[in-house]
């Protein structure tokens, strides 16, 4: 643990502790509430009793009420597909930007960076028409396509590749390795932690993404979890909160679990993502 500055010691601490925990309670209240409701039968949704019997019935009901299994498959497929293509494309592009000189390199890089501001989620109207033109509306591919060339990934990897000393490159070339071999055996292993960080950010972003998938999909065959959840909770179910919270938890469950397991890496990856 790093040293603490002296202003954070002494009596001020009592105040700090109170403030910190009040805020933490406030911040986790929605989630705690959802967990409570999901694991108890509906009559306890608005009526809190410490020893109310636990039940898994809500999950069973929610699971049966909508094709969540299909949604899960779709989401996992989507997230994996995007990540794999992103990693390949960004690696190649970043390598080109980091190690080669070509005409208009500066302009091209600036054009790439523009995507950091104008993300695909904003250009929904045009992107929708593009998808219509190539005839892949309502497919997992159409959800992922606009995100596959990620400016953020290119930028992050370019920074990493730039810090690789030229000597390593040359040494590998002397050994007779081709460009792609060098990339694969020298650069990629050195960027391992950046890859991990990027993967975590990408997975959580696309697992949670909603607006664009909502627009391009309209059948169970391609809908990811987030869209499925919305369709599920907005159809008039007589608003059964217990079931909705159960569905909500199911949707975010895997990500939440992953977050708890990889907490350190998650936080660090977001930090790294911020240091541009």
């Amino acid at each position: 643990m790093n040293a603490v500055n002296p202003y954070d010691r002494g009596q001020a601490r009592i105040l700090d502790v109170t403030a910190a925990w009040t805020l933490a309670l406030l911040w986790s209240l929605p989630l705690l509430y959802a967990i409570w409701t999901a694991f108890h039968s509906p009559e306890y949704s608005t009526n809190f009793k410490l020893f109310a019997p636990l039940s898994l019935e809500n999950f069973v009901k929610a699971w049966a009420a909508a094709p969540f299994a299909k949604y899960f498959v779709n989401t996992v497929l989507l997230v994996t597909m995007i990540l794999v293509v992103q990693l390949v494309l960004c690696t190649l592009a970043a390598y080109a930007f980091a190690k080669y000189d070509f005409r208009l390199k500066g302009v091209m890089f600036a054009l790439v960076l523009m995507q950091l501001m104008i993300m695909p989620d904003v250009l929904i109207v045009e992107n929708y028409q593009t998808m219509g033109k190539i005839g892949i509306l309502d497919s997992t591919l159409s959800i992922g396509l606009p995100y596959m060339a990620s400016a953020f990934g290119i930028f992050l990897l370019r920074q990493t590749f730039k810090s690789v000393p030229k000597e390593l490159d040359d040494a590998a070339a002397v050994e007779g390795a081709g460009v792609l071999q060098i990339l694969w055996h020298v650069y990629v292993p050195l960027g391992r932690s950046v890859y991990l960080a990027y993967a975590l950010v990408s997975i959580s972003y696309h697992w949670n993404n909603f607006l664009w998938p909502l627009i391009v999909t309209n059948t169970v065959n391609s809908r990811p979890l987030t869209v499925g959840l919305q369709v599920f909770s907005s159809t008039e179910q007589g608003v059964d909160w217990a079931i909705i919270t159960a569905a909500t938890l199911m949707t975010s469950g895997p990500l939440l679990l992953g977050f708890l397991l990889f907490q350190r890496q998650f936080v660090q990856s977001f930090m790294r993502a911020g240091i541009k």
Partner: protein
Amino acid sequence: MIMAFTHYPAINTFISSFFLAGKGGAASEFVGLENYRFLLEDKIFWKVLKNNLIFASCTIPLSISLAMVMAFLVNAGLPGQAWLRLSYFVPTVLPMIAVANIWLFFYTPEYGLLEQVRRFLGFSGVNWLGSEKTALYCVIAVAVWKDAGFFMIFYLAALQQIPPSLGEAAMLEGASRFYYYRRVVIPLLMPTTLFVLVNATINAFRMVDHLFVLTQGGPNNASSLLLYYIYEVSFKFWDTGYGATLTLVLLLFLGLASVLQFGVLEKRVHYR
């Protein structure tokens, strides 16, 4: 690929903003500045724009200052630090759409959690999301809750770069705690604040997921935001030409944010 999904659509948006979408397969018709004229007269557009500006001017300062406070607290070596960090950060990882479901319950009239608390305190009921006065602010609260923990991470990273010896020196000089934070720590966090500010601005114009669950922009567009209005115009009324015109307005705001970003980058070079 970036060309295909960022630049090409951005330019095309500009072009189609001059057209009126053809109904039922008919070719679109060139209407020149008609969409823009309509934009100026569109009362809903102005209302939505105003909402978005209110949304931005509430969420940005609130989430940034909360993030800063959270980072101070989490960096102070308090007991249970890991748990504190966890509870602040968790909202960031959850899908907005899922989170909105939970908040929907909080806001529900009659038996929602907020209402139960109010009734317990002896107030009369309020329809939080159903009233034009409160709907937008309910949406803002969710956005702040979601964003603050995310920005906290960046502040935390920056705080850990500040050597504790600075605090010791300030203390020896007899500076108060408040003075130390105001004159030493917060200025040192400036580059981070600028970075977070740009992100918060972009977020304020991009974040709409919770509207789908909470209010659908209502009542009477009281809580609608620009991107949500674009969605409605283009995909509910299928007026893609006008949708494109609206998208241009949105791009204008994002462009402003990016100009700011480049300003930030310039400044950062000076810092090093």
